[in-house]
């Protein structure tokens, strides 16, 4: 495990150091937000930054680091923000390992596999190099889930209620995608409290998270007319008419295995998300910027992403299988601890799908693999659970499994290492 963590830490550090901060999602707008918070000590208006709708925690920290870098003449001043994202990405991997261990303390192979799957997730590796708040939000939410799973397995206490609430509140103060996770934790905690007739920890969980997120949501409601305002108005008319049938059906799904880059299958939810999770649909990673119309992409850019898309087939099926299996197991055993992971994944996927339908965009910028990183803990632990449950527990089978996992990681390294 130490070797995996060391390699993971080195990979994320290396990438964050080498990645051009301006190529990350919303990089320039993120920098304007961070500088407004750190230098002007206020939240940005819509004129200040295009991501004014994002909660401020990461921007406050990145802004302070940015200012320190400028004061000391370190450049680029955004690199500390990237290193913060890398550290958070590393924390996500550790927390996935701890979640697996909390649920099945005796199954060491399962813990290790969950850790490897999370560490080798292209969406997490890419997000960890960006000047972006996503990984910090996922780390805080995963921390909150870990506290909740421990409490659900043992017993909720005042401190676990407060701890989970604070971590999830901070996650919500970093990215709105943490709110569905918070809802899932509260639902699981309520089920547990119902059976135990002990509501104080749940009340503290809700209260502590609301104390942290409430002011932000109230400010959004007051200033922009909606607690969950976005940087563009939703189109008028029926929700169902906002996306064409191709958005839901994904007719060009098979092209995602062959040519998984922009502009193919743009705005087709499943293939677009799949290609971006396992590869880099929008070409913001290790390729030259997207070429002008009529220009040719370097051949290795498409083939590398195509290879990633093929590599992703089996893990994706296993992750989906794992989430379903954990849900079935949770219901059969009446275990809220096991159920929390699939519930959080379902809540995140549902919230994301709703968002993508509510805010259609012609260039597909509301469909990104990194938006679903909140579901990574459930997907990684679920995948590890299925593999561990189905593999024969013999030495030969263990060696074969280890070989396949090593191959899965090795085949991805040319893409994952910048």
């Amino acid at each position, binding site marked *: 495990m130490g070797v995996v963590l060391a390699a993971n830490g080195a990979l994320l550090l290396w990438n964050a150091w080498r990645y051009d901060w301006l190529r990350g999602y919303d990089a320039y707008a993120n920098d304007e937000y961070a500088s407004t918070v750190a230098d002007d000590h206020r939240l940005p208006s819509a004129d200040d930054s295009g991501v004014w709708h994002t909660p401020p925690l990461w921007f406050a920290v990145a802004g302070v680091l940015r200012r320190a870098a400028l004061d000391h003449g370190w450049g680029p001043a955004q690199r500390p923000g990237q290193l913060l994202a890398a550290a958070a990405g590393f924390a996500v991997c550790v927390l996935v390992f701890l979640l697996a261990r909390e649920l099945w303390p005796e199954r060491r192979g399962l813990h290790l596999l969950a850790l490897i799957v999370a560490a080798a997730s292209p969406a997490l590796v890419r997000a960890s190099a960006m000047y972006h708040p996503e990984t910090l939000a996922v780390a805080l939410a995963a921390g909150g889930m870990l506290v909740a799973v421990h409490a659900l397995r043992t017993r909720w206490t005042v401190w676990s209620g407060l701890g989970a609430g604070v971590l999830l509140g901070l996650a919500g103060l970093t990215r709105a995608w943490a709110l569905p996770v918070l809802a899932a934790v509260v639902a699981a905690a309520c089920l547990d409290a119902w059976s135990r007739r002990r509501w104080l920890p749940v009340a503290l969980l809700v209260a502590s998270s609301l104390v942290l997120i409430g002011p932000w949501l109230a400010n959004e409601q007051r200033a922009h007319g909606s607690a969950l305002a976005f940087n563009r108005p939703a189109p008028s008319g029926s929700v169902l008419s906002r996306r064409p049938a191709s958005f839901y*059906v*994904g*007719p*060009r*799904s*098979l*092209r995602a295995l062959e040519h998984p880059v922009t502009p193919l299958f743009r705005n087709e939810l*499943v*293939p677009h998300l799949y290609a971006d999770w396992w590869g880099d649909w929008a070409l913001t990673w290790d390729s030259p910027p997207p*070429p*002008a*119309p*009529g*220009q*040719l992409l370097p*051949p290795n850019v498409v083939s590398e992403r195509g290879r990633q898309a093929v590599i992703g*087939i089996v893990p*994706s*099926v*296993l992750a*989906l*299988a*794992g*989430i*379903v*299996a*954990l849900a*079935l*197991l949770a219901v*059969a*055993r009446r275990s809220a601890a096991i159920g929390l992971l699939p519930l959080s994944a379902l809540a995140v996927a549902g919230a994301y799908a709703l968002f993508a339908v509510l805010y259609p965009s012609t260039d597909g910028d509301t469909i990104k693999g990194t938006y679903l990183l909140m579901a990574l803990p459930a997907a990684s632990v*679920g995948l590890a*659970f*299925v593999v561990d*449950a*189905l593999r024969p527990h013999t030495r030969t089978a263990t060696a074969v499994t280890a070989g396949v996992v090593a191959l899965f990681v090795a085949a991805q390294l040319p893409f994952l290492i910048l």
Partner: protein
Amino acid sequence: MAPRPLTDVRAARLGLAVAVVVVGAQAVVGAAWSLSHDDPTELELTTRCLEREKGLTLEETTDDPVAASAQGGTLRTIVEGNLVTLSVATSQAEAERLRAAYASSNPGVRLDVRGRYVALWLRDPSRSQRQATYDCAY
């Protein structure tokens, strides 16, 4: 008879069955689409753009063996009074081959290679004439 308890193995198998059905259904949708639809080629997209957006009349390329050898196809049109033959290459190497084949007749600025598109103009093109072809490159 009491129902069988849900063991880890059974849960994993059921989960796998559900996942295979879901992913299989998506693959069937993709396969059905691929079998019944062809994505338009670059040449078709360019043709549509030049006709609909630029209002140009297109004709077949004749008497140009270099253009005829372009694997992505070729078309000919007149932009603001200047005849242009557009050839679409399918790789950088092919674009270079087409350029080299045309270059032997010293076309100068009449030969314009941009990515996969190789344009041979009858006379030196103006900026707006070139831009019309650039706008319809995919």
